[in-house]
């Protein structure tokens, strides 16, 4: 769980998306490790990490809703 710079060359035209909400990442991103599976996720900020856990909780309490 930490901030990282999107370290890109000035002529790099690729874009990066938040793994949680889909919004575009600008200049830096927040990363966290998924508790299940251990995958590292890149997201907009801490609020998107909270959103990730919230959606998972909703999915577990009401699957397929």
């Amino acid at each position, binding site marked *: 769980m930490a901030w990282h710079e999107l370290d890109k060359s000035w002529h790099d035209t690729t874009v990066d998306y938040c793994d*949680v*909400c*889909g*919004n575009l990442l600008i200049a830096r991103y927040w990363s966290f490790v998924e508790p299940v599976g251990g995958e590292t996720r890149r997201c907009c900020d801490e*609020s*998107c990490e909270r*959103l990730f856990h919230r959606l998972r909780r909703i999915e577990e309490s009401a699957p397929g*809703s």
Partner: protein
Amino acid sequence: MTGTPPLADVDRVGLTLLYKRVRNICDEMAFAMMRTAYSPIFSEGLDFSTLVLDRRGRLIATAGINPAMLGASLYAATWIIREVGPENFAEGDVFVHNDPYRGGSHLPEHMMVTPVYRDGELAAFVGNIAHLAEIGGMAPGSFAATATDIFQEGLRIPPTKLFDRGEPVRDVWRIMLANHRTPNNSWGDLHAMLGSLRVGERRVGDLIAERGIDGLNESFEQILDYAEAYMRSEILSLPDGIYTGEDCMEDDGISDRPYWIRSRIIVEGDELIFDYSRSDEQAVGPINAPYVVTLSASLNGLLYVLARDVPVNAGIVRPIKVVAPAGTITCVRLPGPCVGGQTEFQPRIMELVLGQILSQILPERAAAASGNTSLNFLFGGVDPRNGEYYAHYHFEGMGWGGRATSDGNSAQIVPHANCRNTPVEIFETKWPWVHEEYCLNDNTAGAGRHRGGLGVRRVLEVAGDVITVSALSERMKRSPWGLFGGREGSRTRLEVAAAGGEEYETFQDAFGLVSPSKFTNIRLRRGDRVRITSPSGGGYGDPLERDPARVLNDVELGFVSRGSAESVYGVVIAGGSATGDSGQDGSGGGDGAAGDPAVDEAATAELRRVMRDGVA
């Protein structure tokens, strides 16, 4: 600031006065743009937004002109500021940016931002977003309905300095103008945007002089907090739960398949999540939405029914999250095309939210579907009157959906965009078309206790040797839906008749197209005619509950035929002429007896009883 009273400890009167003043600055910026632009899409269509932002780039206020740009207003300036770095701005700098892959909505919409300084210290930003009528790409009017990547849609500009300390950056201007088909218009319109910024800069400068940089930004913070608290209190009034709905884009112009948008709204306490993660993958053609378009659509749907006098600024999104995974139609991945996302996808989502989903908990505030397409019709060529290249992006008015309190509006641009129609006189003065017909499309509105609004029919004859036309539209295969027993509205039609001929056929049939609503670069010749029929809105509530006096009024105005009055509304009209019998359903009806037409109360009651109970 009226309405729900959160934040009891702030000076609400003072804050209201300040907010209204900032709003007024946005309005003044908008007038400056409208009055100085070269293109009717600015001066008549009002397809732009004006913004005041704090020193961090957060939206404080916007003129209530084009809600479709809300997502970009909230996000694109932040992008510029973060990418460029606030330390790299200087007084007199103006940045331009139109990149949907950096927070823009679609390529034609250009954002301009300038910093406002006082004594060398950055105090705020002013900005605007406006739809340039022509920015190059594969089709005149830069709305390529058959584009399969963003590079076909026009010139893409990352945050770029257009003025450096007040001086034009000529190399950038030259690149931009060289890539636009109508550079003279672009020159004028970009300068209208610049003029609008200068007005905003002066007015915000006055505010800073009065309040100081820190004082003003503290007040801005309070305005944001107020908007957040207001939104939270409104969301809190909704019952917790998960509410779902779905609708689709009919096709993407490349293949004949629908793309489904699946939405669920999760309400938990004072927070709300829009989740689109179950939507279809992104389309090959240009109906995809960048993230900010999905954000805009979601917020606009919500703002139609909740917190209707909240200050629209960056505070309103704090309790809201929008989940639109990259690679779905709700968040396009580079290099996917997306020019139609703003005009076709956004209204589809907005009305899905406000009509289908929120109607489950706020039926009295919901609305049936409008025609729900911007019905973009683009054209360009060389004007025989002056030998100059022209291009135009035309959008058409249509019928809005009926709602709990009133009928839908007629002949109005799709609700998410708030733009104005281009008058016939402007149309014919500017471009080589002649209008043969422009009228309301009678007897097509979705019936209901409150009926849908009427679409329009416009017939244009080509008055130049050749005109190249393109279209990007929707609602040709699926009708606008009604609500709570209201009937469907009518569909879009785009038809063509060859010079000298009387028979119209669809563009799809005439030119062997994949899609009836999305095509690029069809060449029409002098005397050919185009018939644009825009959709009518869906109805709200059971037509048999409509006040018979209002049905009579509709018949007298020619909006509903006597036949439909009887067969759909169960209203029997006696006396009068056969007014209204010429409706498209050809059903006629009425006895044509002498005297003023009037509702036959007894016959109406009996007919409605039979229609409800099914027993004669």
